[in-house]
């Protein structure tokens, strides 16, 4: 157990350090003068060389790559993300405010995906190859093929522009989250439906089932005790990955629907070369991936005690 925990922490440290370094290196070497971009964002005007030089000094751009990298990465250990190069304010409050919008949206997307995919997949497996199964596969394929930005626009066109049933832009009320959550959730539903369906069909082919099927064990008990736990293993993997990717997916969806959140924050930070803010969002995303991976690992072990054990 302790060995597993140390292994996890080591992996997490490698992933987070690697992410921090690569992001910093990419931003540092991006074309254009970061000081100019910060100045434009801060004052919305072209400024003199003296002011640009002052900003360069202030943002630590004169210190050289390694010095700048370490001066930023050091305080990160105590969760000090530094100050925004543009606004001069602490990064952490902006980050927390953005998470407040993004995290519930990602969760809502995941909930929509699960609510659609679970019954769809279960009904599809009632009669594999039957009409409903084919329809479910077709819906899932269609869902996977439609990009989020196009689906989002279609939903806006129908529900906001033509019928006026739902608001499209902003995040003032909970109803503002319906269309973004649907946009995210339909994509999730597509991949979840396919994986749950194939998981159930695979689990039903387990070799030990004939030995118990005729012993009076009900189909409900077989489904609950034997099929579901086996079908859950690939589903948990995808579920975790979807959760992590949803945070990424919200970047586009937030921009389409004009919502505040991590996506909008990241896009603005990249445009203005706000190093500390970009870094903070990227590190947070990496942290989510690492945490989700740990959660998947734990859930795996709860479902299947063989995982993590030495071979018998």
């Amino acid at each position, binding site marked *: 157990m302790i060995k597993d925990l140390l292994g996890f922490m080591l992996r997490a440290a490698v992933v987070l350090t690697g992410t921090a370094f690569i992001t910093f290196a990419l931003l540092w070497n991006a074309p254009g003068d970061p000081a100019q971009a910060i100045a434009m964002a801060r004052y919305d005007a072209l400024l003199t060389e003296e002011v640009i030089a002052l900003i360069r000094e202030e943002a630590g751009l004169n210190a050289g790559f390694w010095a700048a990298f370490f001066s930023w990465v050091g305080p990160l250990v105590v969760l000090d993300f530094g100050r925004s190069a543009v606004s001069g304010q602490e990064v952490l409050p902006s980050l927390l405010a953005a998470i407040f919008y993004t995290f519930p949206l990602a969760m809502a997307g995941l909930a929509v995906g699960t609510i659609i995919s679970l019954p769809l997949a279960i009904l599809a497996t009632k009669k594999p190859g039957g009409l409903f199964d084919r329809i479910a596969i077709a819906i899932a394929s269609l869902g996977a093929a439609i990009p989020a930005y196009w689906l989002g626009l279609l939903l806006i066109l129908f529900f906001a522009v033509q019928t006026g049933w739902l608001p499209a832009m902003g995040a003032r009320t909970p109803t503002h989250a319906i269309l973004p959550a649907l946009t995210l959730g339909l994509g999730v539903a597509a991949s979840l439906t396919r994986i749950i369906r194939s998981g159930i069909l695979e689990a039903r082919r387990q070799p*030990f089932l*004939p030995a118990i099927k005729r012993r*009076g064990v009900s189909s409900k008990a077989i489904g609950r*005790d034997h099929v579901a736990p086996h079908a859950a293993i690939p589903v948990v993997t995808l579920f975790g990955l979807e959760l992590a990717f949803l945070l990424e997916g919200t970047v586009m969806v937030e921009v389409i629907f004009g919502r505040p959140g991590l996506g909008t924050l990241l896009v603005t930070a990249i445009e203005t070369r706000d190093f500390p803010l970009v870094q903070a969002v990227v590190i947070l995303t990496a942290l989510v991936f690492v945490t989700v991976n740990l959660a998947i690992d734990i859930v795996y072990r709860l479902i299947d005690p063989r995982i993590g054990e030495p071979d018998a």
Partner: protein
Amino acid sequence: MLKVANVSVKHGAAVILSNISFSLQPGKTLAVVGESGAGKSTLIAAILGFLHPSGGKIAWAGASVRSCGPALVMQEPRSAFNPLLSLRRSVMEPVIAQNSEISKRRLNRLCEGLELPAEILNRRPQEVSIGQAQRVGILRALIAAPPLVLFDEPLSALDAVTQKHTAKLIADLQQEEGFAALIVTHDLGYAVAYADEIIVLKSGRIEEVATPTTFAQTPKSDYSRTLRDAAIALGALEASS
């Protein structure tokens, strides 16, 4: 009574079983022998209702076989259990499902007869040897005293001494409880020693139905004779005088 009447099973154009008929009385043992691919396991699947015969009828006491809660001892012992559950949970599953109660004495007696330390049931299938898993499979089949037990190579993973003990335990329990046993096996010595009747299958057809004595001494068909002679050559059967 298990009654199999004119059963045929086809897979596409291929005939897997052709016009199979036999009956099996409670308390009796029927051994089905024959080469690999003869249709022995298909016969078990058809009896249990896992595949639908293209012709003929299979019934237990005039009703469907499924209604009597038949037990199956599978050929591959390790894959016969859910790897996520303890063996105890797997063994007790039919008991719980049938709302029946099993005395501790019966469980202990079966475990003793099968040479299974009780502690083994707390393990999962991948934590025991193949031979132990095989015996737990037999335990699971017999625990709830089913009226019909289908054995698919029940002794194949056991050493000679355990084979002998296990075969005797099955026979003793059958005497006491009167279940009908259908045993699919390549072990002709076991079939001759314990079966009341032997069916020889070849390419999905019944070559011969014989008593163990007839099969061992004066088999009628050429194929039965070939099988018998091979078993004698390997020392599984004694040559008749």
